[in-house]
């Protein structure tokens, strides 16, 4: 039970890291996520059904996500389409593509299919108590991805991408084409989202075109919860940790809402409303936090 609460947060944590990159590092509100998440799930499911090795299938899903992100950036960069619209365009096109990948079906079950998760469970049975196998596995996967991201954003290229989200002119003045950086950043972001989708499909036991619906809102809410939990920092390691912790908190709340919501007469259909309200509440709270800080500063100055 406890394990179930955290596993979802860890799986979707990979997606939240992707959303963190586009929204916070690149300052690019990228809605491609709603399409690249089920893209990852669909590619994973189809690869497994075709008998492709699970780890190779993960790589395929990641590559698919990268391609989706790069397409969004190309639409934005070369056709001068606003970033929101570019993401929506790719997302809409991905809906059809995902159904194609799933073989003209909207849903593909993976219940009796050998997946990475069944392999891992098989290998670790007896070493770790059964209930905790998936928890440990996903904790390791998510932390490894987080650390790889931290390392990336501390390289010269990663730092330049970080600077671009803050100040595009500065990057241009350094003789770097910001379009290239946007493509790299969105590629990595959507690659991670697709990877998350691939794991989600195996965990849920099916791939569905509707998996990505509203996922961007969940991702954004998670990022915001993470930022709310921990003090502001300029260290990328702390920021990515916030994103993962935010995801765990958010999905824990959603899990509780799904299973125990009936107590207050809530159905799973109400969750999207709850997510939206949660974001609005968080926005209001961060606003008032900022106002308070400004007020304190003004008082200090007057003294």
């Amino acid at each position, binding site marked *: 039970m406890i394990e179930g609460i955290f596993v979802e947060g860890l799986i979707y944590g990979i997606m939240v890291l992707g959303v963190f990159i586009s929204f916070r590092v690149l300052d690019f509100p990228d809605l491609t996520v709603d399409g690249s998440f089920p893209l990852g799930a669909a590619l994973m499911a189809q690869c497994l059904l075709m008998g492709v090795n699970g780890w190779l299938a993960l790589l395929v899903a990641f590559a698919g996500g990268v391609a989706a992100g790069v397409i969004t950036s190309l639409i934005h960069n070369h056709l001068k389409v606003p970033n929101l619209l570019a993401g929506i365009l790719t997302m809409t096109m991905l809906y059809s593509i995902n159904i194609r990948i799933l073989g003209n079906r909207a849903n593909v079950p993976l219940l009796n299919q050998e997946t990475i998760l069944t392999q891992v469970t098989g290998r670790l049975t007896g070493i770790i108590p059964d209930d905790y196998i998936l928890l440990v596995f996903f904790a390791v996967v998510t932390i490894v991805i987080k650390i790889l991201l931290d390392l990336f954003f501390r*390289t*010269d*290229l990663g*730092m330049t991408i970080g600077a671009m989200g803050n*100040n595009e002119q500065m990057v*241009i*003045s350094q003789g*770097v084409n910001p379009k290239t950086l946007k493509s790299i950043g969105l590629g990595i972001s959507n690659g991670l989202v697709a990877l998350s989708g691939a794991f989600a499909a195996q965990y849920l036991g099916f791939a569905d075109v509707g998996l990505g619906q509203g996922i961007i809102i969940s991702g954004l809410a998670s990022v915001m919860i993470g930022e709310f939990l921990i003090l502001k920092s300029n260290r990328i390691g702390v920021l990515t940790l916030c994103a993962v912790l935010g995801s765990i908190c958010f999905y824990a709340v959603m899990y509780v809402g799904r299973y125990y919501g009936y107590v207050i007469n809530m159905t799973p259909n109400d969750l999207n409303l709850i997510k939206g309200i949660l974001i609005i509440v968080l926005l209001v709270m961060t606003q008032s936090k900022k106002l308070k800080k400004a007020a304190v500063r003004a008082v200090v100055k007057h003294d």
Partner: protein
Amino acid sequence: MIELKNVSMIFNQGTVNENQAISTINLNVREGDFITVIGSNGAGKSTLFNLIAGTITPTVGSIHLNDRNITRDPEYKRARYIGRIFQNPLLGTASNMSLEDNMMITYKKGFKWLKRSLNHSMREFFKSELVQLRMGLEDRMKENLALFSGGQRQALTLLMMVLSRPDLILLDEHTAALDPKNAEIVLELTNKFIAEYKLTAMMITHNMSHAIEYGNRLLMMDKGEIIFEAAGEEKKALTVEKLIDKFHQIRHKSFESDRTLLSEE
């Protein structure tokens, strides 16, 4: 070194809003020149800089750098040999990153790869360079730039630009948004760096006495044209009064409206 040949810039060509911002300018910037540019608002100073930096491409004419035609090169390509500092001190650095990260990004021009160059010796090098600014920044390497003042950030932008040794630097009223004390410090640093590293520079200023005091050439612009140029001894002999008379002579109109824009101190 940089040469503008018959360059004109017309915005919104063929519409009611047509606006000739630059009309047929010919300019040759020689190596080692320090050119000050003055002119009232709307004279085309910033448009001239935008054309040289590559933010906009000219409607007519061509721009050459060391005899290479760069008219069609985008801004980011030209940025490898042309450095530019803007009036807004926030445009040169990233607020949400630490000082050392900012210095790492701005230290080298061009695309950066998956290498981690920020190490101990690099930090020591940055510190030794920061000492030149005499602002105590060398002890604040890990701090976010959002905590720094506009003057400190502008001085830092200047230092980092100088370290990359560009062929030409464009200073677009880079002290105008700073308080008088910081403006003075940044201007002194600018003059020092240009002399020390023998840089070629162009500086827009609204301050006529600065325009006369600094540099070896002076350009006066009005309505998209260079109406007056002084160099060498002729420039040294200039005073603010003479400049205003000159403008009056050439344009046959009162400078009064512009006096308010061009400060004399």
